[in-house]
């Protein structure tokens, strides 16, 4: 090393380079972090309590204790459902009375008075207006109750504890711990849940979370579940227990959805999306009393109205489509009747009816309009509901009327159970599908997310119907 020409220096450096410890970069980075922390600790004074408060510790112990954690979680989810179901009945009836009993004749008469041709009156009043009015009446009250309840729980700090408690299951199936959070978000809206998966850094685990998000019952599907449970399952129990039984049935479907999400995640993490579980850290924020009115306001504006608006935007054209389906004849039958007759054999196998399958095709834009569509189509096919015109629904202001229409459509308890299952497991709505494409930028994964739940749903319904018919 006597000579110091540039070449020698470079050669020397090249040789010394290999003698440094292997993880030199990591060690340097670590000591920089450590030094920064030391400087901060010397120069920053902190005020206030750093130890956790006693009541917070006690509450954490209760909410994460092996014996109490899960009963409490299920109890709270069940309570939210029960409040939503029982609380939504009265305002729903009032809205239906206002928008349909009084609003529909008004719109219809106005159009007639304006000398609109009969087909235009039918399309606008019986198609577009009625579908939209129905969506508002069916959806607004449960959403206005469900979303604020959820936001309150989130603000209080309960949801992160749910993710904490459930994490071991996510570990076992090879999914990311934060998937618990995106799944609870999916309980509100799957499109929102899919966007929320951005909190997961690893692309592999994020894809799993995206594909399985559809198994979280979204807000558009809660009304279907709730209506089916209260008309067909609650009715099996004595009147005093009807509400509880319905809530339990809906809860069971929601938990089944969780089970399917875990099963699918497990399957994906062991086949096409194999990989290491990446590190995850979940902050458990201190409990704080939620600011009630602020939460109510923001969840109404940010969630309820946005989701409702989306539903209306999709319901109006769907209403037109339903009316056209029902009123354009090909040969001796309407388009709707053709489709319904054609799919009836498959529908029977699945324990459903052709009307339901058609409703799910029409309702791809939004799950919210499934029930209104089913009612309209049932009226069309059976002529029930007071001799109204094709594709028109009258006086759906109480569950009694809905019940009589559905019974006229040949529905049984099996139909309701299979509809609840199919509502849980079918393709996501078009907004969610589009969101999945935007988030993954892959047609392949979008297709998987779309068809995987549909295939599971069809299989599940066929299996359920077969077993039911065997036992009955």
């Amino acid at each position, binding site marked *: 090393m006597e000579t110091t020409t540039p070449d020698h220096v470079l050669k020397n450096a*090249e*040789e010394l*380079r*290999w003698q*440094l*410890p*292997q*993880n030199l*970069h*990591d060690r340097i*980075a*670590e*000591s920089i*972090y*450590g030094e*920064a*922390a*030391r400087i901060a600790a010397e120069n920053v004074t*902190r005020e206030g309590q*750093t130890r*956790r408060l006693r009541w917070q*510790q006690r509450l*954490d*112990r209760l909410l*994460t*204790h*092996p014996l109490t*954690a*899960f009963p409490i979680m299920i109890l709270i989810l069940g309570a939210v459902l029960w409040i939503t179901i029982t609380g939504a009945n009265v305002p729903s009836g009032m809205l239906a009375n206002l928008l349909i009993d009084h609003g529909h004749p008004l719109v219809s008469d106005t159009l007639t008075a304006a000398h609109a041709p009969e087909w235009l009156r039918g399309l606008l009043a019986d198609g577009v207006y009625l579908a939209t009015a129905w969506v508002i009446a069916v959806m607004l009250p449960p959403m206005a109750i469900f979303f604020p309840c959820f936001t309150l729980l989130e603000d209080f700090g309960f949801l992160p504890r749910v993710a*904490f*408690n459930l*994490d*071991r*299951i996510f*570990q076992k199936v090879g999914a990311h*711990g934060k998937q618990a959070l995106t799944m609870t978000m999916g309980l509100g809206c799957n499109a929102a849940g899919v966007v929320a998966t951005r909190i997961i*850094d*690893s*692309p*592999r*685990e994020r894809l799993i979370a995206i594909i399985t998000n559809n198994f979280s019952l979204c807000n558009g599907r809660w009304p279907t579940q709730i209506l089916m449970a209260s008309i067909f399952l609650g009715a099996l129990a004595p009147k005093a227990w009807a509400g509880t039984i319905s809530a339990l049935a809906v809860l069971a479907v929601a938990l089944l959805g969780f089970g399917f999400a875990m099963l699918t995640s497990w399957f994906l993490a062991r086949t096409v999306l*194999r*990989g*290491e*579980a*990446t*590190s*995850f*850290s*979940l*902050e*458990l*924020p*201190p409990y704080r009393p939620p600011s009630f009115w602020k939460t109510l306001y923001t969840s109404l504006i940010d969630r309820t109205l946005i989701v409702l608006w989306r539903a209306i935007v999709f319901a109006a054209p769907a209403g037109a489509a339903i009316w056209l389906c029902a009123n354009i004849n090909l040969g001796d039958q309407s388009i709707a009747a053709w489709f319904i007759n054609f799919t009836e054999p498959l529908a029977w196998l699945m324990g459903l009816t052709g009307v339901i399958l058609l409703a799910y095709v029409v309702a791809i834009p939004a799950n919210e309009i499934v029930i209104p569509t089913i009612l309209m189509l049932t009226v069309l096919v059976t002529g029930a509901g007071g001799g109204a015109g094709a594709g028109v629904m009258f006086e759906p202001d109480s569950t009694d009327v809905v019940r009589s229409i559905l019974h006229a459509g040949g529905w049984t308890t099996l139909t309701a159970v299979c509809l609840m299952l199919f509502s849980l497991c079918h393709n996501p709505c078009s907004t969610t599908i589009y969101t999945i494409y935007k988030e993954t930028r892959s047609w392949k994964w979008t297709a998987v997310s779309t068809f995987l739940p549909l295939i599971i749903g069809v299989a599940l319904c066929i299996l359920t119907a077969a077993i039911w018919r065997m036992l009955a």
Partner: protein
Amino acid sequence: MNPFNRASASSQRIQLEDALKHLLDYEQTNRGTTVESLAGALAIPRPDAAEILGRLRSRGLAKAAGITHHLTEDGRIYAIQVVRTHRLYETWLARETSTPAEDWHKEAHKAEHHIGSAKADELANLLNNPRFDPHGDTIPTREGHMPKREFTDLASWPDGQSARIEHLEDEPESLFREIQTLALAPDTLIETPRHLEDGSVKALIEGRNVLIPARLTTLIHLAATTEDDGKPELRRLSDLAIGDTAVVHALAPACTGNERRRLLDLGLVPGTRITCEFPSPFGSPRSYMIRGALIALRDHQAERILIEAPVSQSTSETTSAQ
């Protein structure tokens, strides 16, 4: 070894490149490549191996000396380029993706034939010109420099003398998976190793007594520890009892890439006081108080965080780690 259609031109190139790697491997270990050794390494019939060597000769990449074959200068440059791509790709998989460790080799083996040298240089830039791949193999530099290194494996390492892991053999895959489950990585310290009668080795690794089965001992290559390895008594965060407090000493070498960055970002840096608060109903994850925030970590991660007993301070802290 080769799942591709033998007739296609790209599969021919893949075979040539694999043969070059074999020649380079034997050159590094001062052995001469023969038709038999190549046939064994690529799992192909001997006539095929002989034909490949013929093709290498005709393209000026290898030359024959008696029954053995050696790389020409051109052949060596080519082979080193393929090895460089392979190891860079493995490093990238380990640091930036969540590909399971046992798949690194397989994936890199596929990628090395498709990634050109320009792309490999890009990869090197992205990774800050790493010197070692995740197994501890040296990554050849842009100029093709790759020092030879000599290791002693754990099987022949003297009892009682602490060592540092320098290199891990990544084949066979199933055994490498076992090494991974023991969380051994290059730079991991193996303290006071002791050979047992059945050939397995018992050692203190990151505060835990670990039994390394005999079948793994020849795959683990060691070097003597340097002086700066003198450490206080270490434990792993996952072994901290609930309610106890400790101080972070360092993150384990097995914790790399994104995982390491995330833990550092959380404030898990040397000197941070950390208290284990409460477990989840299933035991893992557990929640820890770190710098005033309650953070849940899975045991799998907490194992990678090395802690020491806190230096007693004149605070109201009554709990101690020991």
